[in-house]
């Protein structure tokens, strides 16, 4: 019944050679919070909300995991800022990380005091020269079925898939808030 947005593998084969080189540049020791995804697109301030996996603290008894729609682990969210410096429009279409069994782009809206969360089916468009924030209470990358405790200060590889720029892996910092 459930459809998985992305599976476990962290790095997919990049669509283009340009995508590969961008991903390699991004992975090769840039600053912790600034990840150039290309000359025209920057990925900044990448973070994941801390989450505890019960089995990490105390060994779980077999069969006590509670289903959450996709697996035993809890859910959390990743946030970031996308900054376009011009050029052509791009689109964040997908994301993946080793620590989650499924990853989807979601948007939370509070309408008339009611919180609704829905999957963003068509990805997150980034117009040339624009800045798009994924932040609490709005657009976010939902990590489902998290496999291990993510404690503040930890770092997690998060691979972002852009329509044009291809895959870009960023180091997300785990934060409490």
């Amino acid at each position, binding site marked *: *019944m*459930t*459809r*998985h*947005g992305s599976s476990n593998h962290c790095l997919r084969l990049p669509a283009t050679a340009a995508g590969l080189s961008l991903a390699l540049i991004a992975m090769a020791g840039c600053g912790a919070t600034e990840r150039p995804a290309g000359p025209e697109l920057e990925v900044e301030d990448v973070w994941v*909300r801390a989450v*505890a996996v*019960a089995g990490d603290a105390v060994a779980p008894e077999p069969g006590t995991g*509670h*289903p*959450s*729609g*996709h697996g035993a682990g*809890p*859910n*959390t*969210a990743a946030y970031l800022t996308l900054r376009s410096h011009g050029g052509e429009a791009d689109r964040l279409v997908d994301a993946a990380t080793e620590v989650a*069994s*499924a990853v*989807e782009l*979601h948007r*939370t809206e*509070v309408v008339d*005091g*009611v*919180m*609704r*969360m*829905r*999957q963003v*089916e068509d990805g997150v468009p980034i117009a040339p020269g624009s800045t798009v924030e994924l932040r*609490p*209470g709005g657009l*976010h990358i*939902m*990590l*489902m*079925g998290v496999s291990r405790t993510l404690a503040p200060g930890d770092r997690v590889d998060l691979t972002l898939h852009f329509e044009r720029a291809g895959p870009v892996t960023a180091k997300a910092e785990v934060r*409490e*808030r």
Partner: protein
Amino acid sequence: MIRTRFLLAGAALALLAALAAVAVGIRLAALPELHGTLLDPPLPAAEFALTSADGGAVGPQDFRGRLVVLFFGFTNCPDVCPLTMHRLGSAMEELGDRADQVQVILVSVDPERDPPAKVDEYAKRFHPSFIGVTGSDDELRTVTSSYGIYYARTEVEGALGYTVDHSASTLVLDRNGGLRMIWPFDTTPEGMASDLRYLIRR
């Protein structure tokens, strides 16, 4: 003679002004800027008996003499729920030794995925004093409707299967169990702590 009268009148005016200033000062001290909707007088709030981690029944009536903060959510909610719970945890830190005057209760509106022990464990991650409860769909419907809280299970595309749309506001019950304050979703921890301090003083 005339001069004396002027002096007396001046003194009387000064006294009045001083009294007025004191009165305004007391008024300002009594009513700080609030960060949600204050219900004055408080609305009657329903007792309830939802299930806690140890299987016992828990409701706001168990915490008379303390303020009770109610939030309705679910543990699979990755964005708004942890944000609100974390803000409540920060507000408790901010309250310091007055935090024991406040009991935060998280009510899960997703009983299928959130057994009481799971909700409670989740709530305690944000502050050790927090408790998490849930109940059957029927029980939850009764509780939420009596508090004006909306929730609806909604099937969605994707790995989540379903999500639960729910009211994002937080409710504060006074020491006598009356509904006293409603905070909107975006209330800051500082705002919450300030309002709680005000309600503790009253």
